[in-house]
């Protein structure tokens, strides 16, 4: 998938566990896991906002676009 989710990288930088993050953003562990493992098909802006607020980062720190044509 061209969009890569670097949530685990940002979580490691901020030293936040999955449980802590799920409590802060009010998302279930399973939904967070779906996002973290790149299985999510869509992300709501409200969720992205909550994650960025919790991890004190920008959306670009979590989401990355990889052009599969160029690679």
């Amino acid at each position, binding site marked *: 998938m061209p969009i890569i989710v670097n949530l685990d990288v940002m979580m490691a930088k901020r030293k936040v566990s999955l449980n802590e993050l799920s409590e802060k953003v009010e998302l279930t562990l399973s939904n*967070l896991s779906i996002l973290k493992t790149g299985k999510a*098909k*869509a992300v709501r802006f409200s969720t992205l906002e909550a994650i960025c607020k919790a991890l004190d980062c920008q959306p670009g720190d979590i989401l990355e676009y990889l052009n599969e044509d160029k690679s």
Partner: protein
Amino acid sequence: LLLKLKLKTPFSIPVNNKLETISKLLLGIWILIAILLRTYSNNIVGPTGIALPDNYSGDEYIFVAGIVYIISKIFQRGIELQEENQLTV
């Protein structure tokens, strides 16, 4: 079909498969009636014991088969949308 239907996630593959089976079954019944009517057109008696009219062709079965088939196609689209919604965080 009713036992497999869950209101929380109504669009599921088993339910869709059941609907497709029902639609094919109804189509098969219509074909069977058409064959029987051509073969035994004078001696067919309806479920009430009254002889069927000459112009009876069992078209209601193909009509209901078509409707159930359309519903199964709508269910298929519903499955896709439900899956996408479940993977939206």
